[in-house]
């Protein structure tokens, strides 16, 4: 059965490219338009991995990570930040919140897939 990955990003074009890349490689994808939307969906849907943007309206990426890690259904899943942000201080913030990894946009499909494979074991 294909692994289910959530992509949370306020940019529709980025969500589209992430979904395209993942689907091409046999993953199922669920999309969320911001942190709040992601959190709602993750409350009722078990996923295998979360890819999230940092800067999003309503609830940002760091807030989303903290909420997921503090929840129950998906608290142990790998969470990778996918953001334009590249500052070390922000990366540390993400790591502290519970991020598994950090990818700076723009990503190359092969990079994303390599990371996904790695974190999903």
């Amino acid at each position, binding site marked *: 059965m294909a692994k289910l990955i959530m992509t949370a990003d306020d*940019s529709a074009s980025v969500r*589209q490219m992430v979904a395209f890349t993942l689907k091409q490689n046999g993953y199922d994808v669920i999309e969320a338009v911001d942190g709040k939307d992601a959190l709602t969906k993750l409350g009722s849907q078990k996923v295998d991995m979360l890819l999230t943007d940092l*800067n999003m309206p309503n609830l940002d990426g760091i807030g989303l990570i903290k909420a997921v890690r503090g929840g129950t259904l998906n608290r142990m899943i790998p969470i990778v930040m996918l953001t*334009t942000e*590249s500052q070390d201080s922000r990366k540390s913030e993400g790591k502290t919140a519970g991020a*598994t990894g*950090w990818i700076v946009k723009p*990503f190359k499909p092969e990079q994303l897939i390599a990371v996904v494979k790695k974190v999903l074991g």
Partner: protein
Amino acid sequence: MELLTQWRDRILPTIDIIKRTAGTTEDEFLQIGARLQEFYAKSQESSRLAHRLVDLVSDDDYHALVAGLRRMTDEMAEYLEASRLQNRESCDSLEQVLELLETVSQPLAAFKKMDKTLRMLGISTKIESARLGEAGNGFMSLAVDVGKLSCLVREKTDSIRIQRELLGSVLAKHLQVGKASKLLQTKEACSMLNAATISFDELADLNARCSSCGELAGQVSGEVSSSISEVVSSLQIHDMMRQQMEHVSEALERLACEVDTTLAIECDDERLAAAVGQVGDVCELQVAQVQNATNELHEAVVSAIDNLHDIGERQSLLSCEIMNATGSNGASENSFFTDLRNVFSDLGAVLRKCAETDRLFFATLGKVAETISEISGFVSSIEEVSTEINLIALNAQIRAAHTGQDGVALGVLAEGINSLSKVAAPQANELLRTLSSISVLTDTLVSKAECELAVLGERLTGMEEKSDKTVSSLEQMNEKISRLLVDLVGSVGELNEDIRQLTSGITVHYSVAELTRSVACELNEVVSQARERVPATNEFHENLRHMASRYTMQSERRIHEAIARRHSGAAEDSVVNSMEYADSGGDSEFGDNVDLF
């Protein structure tokens, strides 16, 4: 103060334009992204068809077909040689028959002379009988019998002569036509066999060419994946442009608020100069950010278009290479396989003609045997005439003796008749011997030809079956190749057309450039007026420090840094438009922009 008001009024509309630029241009990106999946699927389908085509002429069936063709050609060459030898032998035998038929002339001349003598003796006997009157009555019926024999000899001799001439003519004609057609057929078949042999070399070349096409297909597949990957990267630029534009509009909104604040209070010259300097600094920086965002977007869109075109072009190249490799001159017909199929089809037809020629030869030999048997019947009749002549001569001698002195002349005639019977028998025997020789020759040939024709016929049937199977396999392969080529060319054509339609409608980079050009123009005018009054200072970096902390992208920071350096007199970074993935080193296993914790 008045200028500050003017600048604020110029800045405010640019904020709207920038917001509009960031907020309304994503649809085109989404449209491209939506079609990317389709292009990828079509490209994969083209690659799959290309691989199937290449595999078709590289797999075991192909090698079995080539080996089968080689074996079949060898068998055809052997058949042709056997048929040629058999034909030569038949021709030699028929020539011997013709020579033997020539020797029949001598006995026929003797029979003709016998007929003449018999006629003469018959007339003389009639005259002498008439002279004797009553005493010669018995000789009159003798003369009639001699006359009848003469007619019989003449009749049979004529029949033999006619049959001989007819047979000689048929044989000569058959030899001439048979030799010529056999020569032509052998020449034709040899030329076709040579063509088939050349075709095998082409088959070997085809296999080699298709193998290299297989490598090319793999390469193209990799290049297409790489192009798709580039498009995926390029299409993410909108998110970055949007964020950069949002930062610009935020900076300008904040500047407009600060100008409003300045306008609202009583300002001294120093405060006013600081406000003017800030307008210059902020606007100069935002122009650079807007231009950078515009350039990055332009480059990314152009790159996406180029890569999309590359996908179509690479598939077209592969499609052309495969068409050349398989020797196809069009999408619906594969000329090489068609030529090869025609060669074997024609070869089969020529071999069937060869077999027909052999069969006709055999039939001719049968006809010879029939005619010889008929001639022998006539000769036997003549042989019987010889016995009758002998009896008539004996009867005539007895009657002449009874007639006494008056029958002396008739006795001489009887003696003549008797000596004729002695001439007729050896000539008839000689003729029968010749005919027997011909019979032996033809019987041997018929029996041998019968056997050989049966063997050759069996071989031909076997070859025809194999040929049918091989031609059928060739047709099937040709059909498969043609069908796949049609599908491949159609699929690639469709892909190219779809890409052309989509890319020809992409104008987002031009519309963004158009909008940002007016923004840059307005802001540059403000910068120019502000700098005239308050030149830039090396305090730039410090003045706009708050702005730097809001950046999310490395490219924004680099632009900020470059302008600050310029104003502080340090060397400006020459490149500010290039996209940087990260400002700190990532995990090398995945690239500089990736960190796994």
